C-alpha cells in the first residue's frame, strides 16, 4: 500500500473530530431541576447500556466517514505486481531523451531519429489519465523540471520538434533529476524511460558515489519507479573527430610564428585511411595533411603560422573522411588575438644608478632585448621601470602585467589598486629580495589568503630578518632548480621533452613559504631540488599572480646569466598577460561578451552567427564601459562581432565549441549494463519488443480512493438510517 498524496495523510487527524465534539458537547450541558425524575431513572435503568452502545456505534460510524474521506484524499493504492502496467492503474511517466550531440551519429538513420520513433511509440502506450514529463538529458537537473503533461498529443509534438543539442549529457544528473521529478507525481505507477545511445562517456560509472546515490534514490522512492533504458544507434559506430586545437603560445604577436597543435582521433573499430586535415586561417586554407588513423588511435598534428597583422583572427581545422558517422565533431575553431605591444610595468625596489645593479636591470633586458639586426629578438613586450615612489602615480590600466622586484612594502592604496588590476584580468609577478618586509607582505599582500600573494612568506631564525636559506650554511652554498610540478604555459618550454635544462642554475638564497592552502586557485608550478616551492600561481578573478621565491637579479642566484633566463621571464610575463577579457573561445551555452569604450561604444554592434541571420547586439552600460552580450550560443561555430561599418580586419572573432568528449561514441560494456540492472533495477531494451516487454501490459495494482469514497457515502447512509430508526 502506498499513498500517492502522502502529504495529506495529516487529514486523518479529522478522525478525532467526533470524539472532540462529543467531549466538547459533554461540557456544554444545560442544568435543569426536574421533578419527574422517576421516569428518567426508569428509562436509564433499562436503556443506559443500549444508549451508550448506540452512541458509540454512531461515533464510530462518523469517525469511519471522516477516516474514509481523509484516506481517499491521500489516494492510497494497493500494488499487486510492481513490474507491469494494469488496465485500471494510471501511470506517471518521465520520458528522458538523450539529446547530446552524439545522438546525431548514424548513417542511414541517426540515433536521434531512432530515439524519436521509440519515444513516440512509447507515448502511444500511455492512456488518458496518465501523465508524462518530457525531459532532455542536456537540460535535466540544470533548472526546474518541465511541467507534466496530461495532453499526450502535446508531448508527442514536443518530441517531434526536438533536436539534439551540442552539449554532453551527464547521465547521473539527468536520471537523478528525472527520478526526483517522478517522486512528485501522483499516479500509482511510475515509469522512467531513458532513450539513449548508451554512450559510455556520459555515464561516468567510475564515480561510484553518484551511482550509489542514484540507487538509494530509487530504493527510497515511495513508489519504486520502473527504470527502463532504451538503447538506440549503432553498436559499434565509427567516428573520426578533431578533439583538440591549442596554440603553443598564450600570447600571439606578429613577430614570431605560433604552432597550433591539433589532435585527431579515430573512435571507431576500423582503421581510417586518407584522413585529410586542413588548417585554415581567417577562412583561407593554409595547409592540408593526410593521416592514417588506426582503430582507437589519436594523432597529433602541428601547424605553424605567423600572423602578419595584429587583431582578431580565426583559425580552423577541418577533418574529412569517407567513413564517419558523426560529422559534427570534424571541425575545430580557435580565436587568436594577435597583439603588437604588451606593456609591462616593472617596479624596482632597489634602484641604483650603476649598470646592472638595480633589481630590474636584468629583467628589463630579458623582457625587451634590443637587437635591431636580429629580428628573432623582437618582442611585443614593452617594459616601463618605476620605483616604489612612482608606483602610486602609475595608471595600471595601461599595463597588462606588473612586476614587483624586491619591493620592500606597498602602501595600502597601491595594494587595493593592484588587487583591482589583477581581478580585472591583469597579471602580477612578485619577485622578492633582501629588502622585502615579510610582515608587511603577509599583512598587506597575503591577508590570510584573501590577498594577492598565493602563500605567506615565512621567516626562520631571527624574526626581524628575512630567512635566507642556504644548503649547508655557507654563503656560496646553493640549491638547484628542481622539477615542474604542474604544467603551465609559462613553463612549457622547460618540460623535460623540450630539451631546455634549467638545473644548471644555482640559487643561493630564497624565501621559504608556508604550505599552500588546498585550494584550486593556488598551485605550485615548480620547486627547487630540495622540494621548496620555486614558483607558485594564484588565480584571482580574471587575472593571476606568480610568486617567484627568489630574486630576479644576481644577488640571490645566477639565473640571469643562464640562456633560459630570457625565455623564462618572457614566458612568465606572457602567461600572466594571456587572459583575454572577455574570453573569445567559448563552450556551447557560454555567454558571448564584447566590451567597447569611447567612441566605439556608441556604434551599433552586429553579431554574425553560424547558419543564422545577423543580429544587432543589445548594449548595456557598466560604468565607463559598454558591454554587448549574447547568451544563446547553442550552436557551435564561428561568431563575429563587428561594429557597424567596420573593416573586415576590425571584426572580432569568437568561437563556440561543443563538448569534445561526445566524440567518443564507445557504448556501455555488457558488464556495465548488468551492474546497472543490478544496482538500479533498470531494464535495458535494445528494440521495441523488448521495450514493450519491459513496460508490461498486465498485472499492476489498484488505487482505492474510489472505494474509500464509496465507503464514506455508505457510512453516511448507514448513519442516517440508524439515527432515523433509533429516533
Amino acid at each position: 500500500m502506498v499513498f500517492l498524496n502522502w502529504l495529506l495523510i495529516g487529514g486523518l487527524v479529522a478522525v478525532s473530530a467526533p470524539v472532540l465534539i462529543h467531549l466538547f458537547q459533554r461540557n456544554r450541558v444545560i442544568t435543569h431541576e426536574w421533578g419527574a425524575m422517576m421516569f428518567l431513572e426508569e428509562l436509564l435503568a433499562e436503556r443506559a447500556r443500549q444508549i451508550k452502545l448506540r452512541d458509540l456505534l454512531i461515533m464510530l460510524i462518523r469517525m469511519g466517514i471522516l477516516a474514509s474521506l481523509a484516506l481517499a484524499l491521500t489516494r492510497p493504492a494497493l500494488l499487486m505486481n510492481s513490474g507491469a502496467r494494469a488496465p485500471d492503474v494510471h501511470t506517471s511517466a518521465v520520458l528522458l531523451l538523450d539529446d547530446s550531440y552524439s545522438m546525431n551519429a548514424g548513417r542511414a538513420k541517426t540515433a536521434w531519429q531512432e530515439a524519436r520513433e521509440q519515444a513516440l511509440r512509447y507515448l502511444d502506450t500511455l492512456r488518458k489519465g496518465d501523465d508524462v514529463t518530457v525531459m532532455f538529458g542536456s537540460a535535466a537537473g540544470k533548472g526546474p523540471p518541465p511541467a507534466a503533461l496530461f495532453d499526450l498529443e502535446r508531448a508527442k509534438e514536443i518530441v517531434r520538434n526536438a533536436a539534439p543539442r551540442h552539449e554532453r549529457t551527464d547521465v547521473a544528473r539527468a536520471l537523478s533529476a528525472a527520478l526526483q521529478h517522478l517522486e512528485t507525481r501522483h499516479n500509482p505507477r511510475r515509469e522512467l524511460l531513458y532513450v539513449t545511445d548508451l554512450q559510455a562517456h556520459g555515464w561516468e560509472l567510475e564515480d561510484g558515489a553518484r551511482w550509489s546515490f542514484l540507487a538509494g534514490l530509487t530504493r527510497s522512492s515511495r513508489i519504486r519507479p520502473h527504470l527502463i533504458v532504451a538503447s538506440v544507434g549503432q553498436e559499434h559506430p565509427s567516428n573520426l573527430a578533431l578533439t583538440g586545437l591549442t596554440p603553443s603560445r598564450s600570447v600571439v604577436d606578429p613577430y614570431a610564428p605560433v604552432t597550433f597543435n591539433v589532435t585527431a582521433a579515430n573512435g571507431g573499430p576500423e582503421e581510417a585511411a586518407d584522413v585529410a586535415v586542413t588548417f585554415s586561417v581567417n577562412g583561407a586554407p593554409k595547409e592540408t595533411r593526410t593521416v592514417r588513423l588506426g582503430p582507437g588511435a589519436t594523432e597529433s598534428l602541428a601547424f605553424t603560422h605567423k600572423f602578419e597583422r595584429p587583431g582578431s583572427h580565426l583559425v580552423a581545422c577541418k577533418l574529412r573522411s569517407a567513413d564517419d558517422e558523426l560529422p559534427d565533431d570534424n571541425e575545430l575553431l580557435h580565436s587568436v588575438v594577435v597583439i603588437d605591444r604588451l606593456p609591462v610595468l616593472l617596479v624596482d625596489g632597489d634602484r641604483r644608478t650603476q649598470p646592472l645593479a638595480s633589481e630590474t636591470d636584468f629583467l628589463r633586458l630579458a623582457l625587451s632585448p634590443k637587437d635591431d639586426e636580429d629580428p628573432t629578438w623582437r618582442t611585443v613586450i614593452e617594459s616601463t621601470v618605476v620605483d616604489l615612489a612612482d608606483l602610486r602615480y602609475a595608471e595600471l590600466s595601461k599595463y597588462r602585467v606588473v612586476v614587483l622586484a624586491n619591493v620592500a612594502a606597498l602602501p595600502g592604496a597601491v595594494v587595493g589598486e593592484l588587487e583591482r588590476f589583477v581581478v580585472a584580468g591583469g597579471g602580477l609577478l612578485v619577485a622578492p629580495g633582501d629588502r622585502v618586509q615579510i610582515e608587511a607582505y603577509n599583512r598587506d599582500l597575503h591577508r590570510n589568503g584573501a590577498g594577492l600573494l598565493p602563500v605567506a612568506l615565512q621567516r626562520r631564525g631571527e624574526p626581524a630578518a628575512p630567512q635566507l636559506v642556504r644548503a649547508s650554511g655557507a654563503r656560496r652554498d646553493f640549491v638547484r632548480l628542481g622539477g615542474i610540478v604542474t604544467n603551465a604555459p609559462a613553463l612549457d618550454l622547460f618540460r623535460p621533452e623540450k630539451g631546455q635544462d634549467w638545473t644548471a642554475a644555482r640559487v643561493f638564497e630564497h624565501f621559504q613559504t608556508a604550505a599552500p592552502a588546498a585550494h584550486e586557485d593556488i598551485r605550485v608550478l615548480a620547486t627547487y631540488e630540495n622540494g621548496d616551492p620555486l614558483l607558485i600561481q594564484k588565480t584571482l578573478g580574471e587575472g593571476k599572480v606568480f610568486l617567484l621565491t627568489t630574486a630576479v637579479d644576481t644577488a640571490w642566484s645566477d639565473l640571469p646569466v643562464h640562456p633560459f633566463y630570457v625565455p623564462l621571464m618572457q614566458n612568465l610575463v606572457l602567461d600572466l598577460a594571456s587572459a583575454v577579457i572577455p574570453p573569445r573561445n567559448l563552450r556551447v551555452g557560454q555567454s558571448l561578451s564584447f566590451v567597447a569604450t569611447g567612441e566605439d561604444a556608441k556604434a551599433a554592434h552586429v553579431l554574425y552567427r553560424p547558419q543564422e541571420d545577423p543580429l544587432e547586439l543589445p548594449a548595456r552600460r557598466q560604468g565607463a564601459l559598454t558591454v554587448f552580450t549574447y547568451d544563446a550560443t547553442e550552436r557551435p561555430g564561428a561568431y563575429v562581432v563587428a561594429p557597424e561599418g567596420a573593416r573586415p580586419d576590425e571584426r572580432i572573432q569568437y568561437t563556440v565549441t561543443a563538448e569534445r568528449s561526445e566524440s567518443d561514441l564507445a557504448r556501455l560494456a555488457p558488464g556495465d549494463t548488468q551492474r546497472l540492472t543490478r544496482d538500479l533495477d533498470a531494464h535495458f531494451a535494445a528494440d521495441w519488443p523488448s521495450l514493450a516487454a519491459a513496460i508490461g501490459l498486465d498485472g499492476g495494482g489498484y488505487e482505492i480512493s474510489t472505494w474509500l469514497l464509496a465507503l464514506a457515502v455508505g457510512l453516511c447512509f448507514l448513519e442516517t438510517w440508524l439515527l432515523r430508526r433509533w429516533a
Partner: protein
Amino acid sequence: MALPPEVVDQQALERVSKLRLVARTVVESFVSGQHRSVYKGFSVEFAQHREYSRGDEIRHIDWKVFGKSDRLFVKQYEEETNLRAHICLDASGSMRYAGSGGSKFDYARKCAAALAYLMIGQSDGVGLVTFDDRIRTHIPARSTSGHLNTVFKHLADTKADRETNLAPILHDLAGRIRRRGLVVVLSDFFAPTEDLVQALAHLHHRRHEAILMQVLDPREIEFPFDEMYEFRCLERPGVRLRLDAPRVAKLYRERFAAFQDRLREACHRCRFDYVVLPTDRPCDAALAQYLTYRQGR
C-alpha cells in the same frame, strides 16, 4: 374575609364560588339540607334504638324502653349532615417544579384554597392535609368561617420539600378519616403506580370518595428538551442525570402516558375522579370545567 394574596387568587375564587360542588355520593351533598345523610348520629330527629353497649353515654339510654322491656337501649337520631371533605396537598419536592411559569405547588395550593373557600361557603366541612414523605399537617374538617382562616394560614405556611411517599400517606388517611367523606388529592402522583393503586383501593374500601387532581407542568407531559441536559432531582439533592434529551424524549412521553393511563384506570375502578391540571391553564378555568362536568353528572 380577606385572603392572603399569595395563597388565593381572588378573581379565581370569586368565579369558582358561583359554582356548586355537588357530591356524587348519596349521603352527602353540597347544599345544606338538600340530601339526607345515611349516617346515624346524634341529631334531633330520632331514627331507631340500638342495644346499649359498653361505652355508650348513659344520657342516651331510653329509660322508657328499659322500663317496658327491662333491657337497655340507646336512642339513635337521624342527623342532617353537610359534606366533609379533606383536601390533601402534596408538598413534596417534585411539586416545586416550575417549568415555564409558577410552580406546581403554587398552582395546587391555589386550587386547594379555592376548593376550601367554595366548600365552606356552602357550609361543608373542610379539612386540610399536607404531606410529603409523611403527613405534615392534618386539620380536621370543619365548616366554620373561622376554620377557613386556619386552612389558609396553613396553606400559606406550607413549603414544598422532601420526597414523595404518596401511597403510605393515602393508606394513613384512609385510616384516619373515620367518617365517609370526600378526599381531594392535589399532587403530581409521582410514585410507583402499583402502590398508588393499592392505596386508592384502600380509600375506596373505606367508602371514601376521592378526586385525584394531578397537577403537572406542560414540560413534564411533553418533555420538549432538545439538547444535552443535566436533570437535577428536586426531591433528592445530589441525584442528577446527564442525558441527550432528544434521544429519550419519545420514550419518556410513552412512559409518562402509560403512567397516566394506569392512574386513570385505577381511579375508574374505584369510581374516583381523575383530573389533570396543567399549570399553563388558569386554575379557575380548570376547576370550573371540572365542577361543571361534575354538576352535570
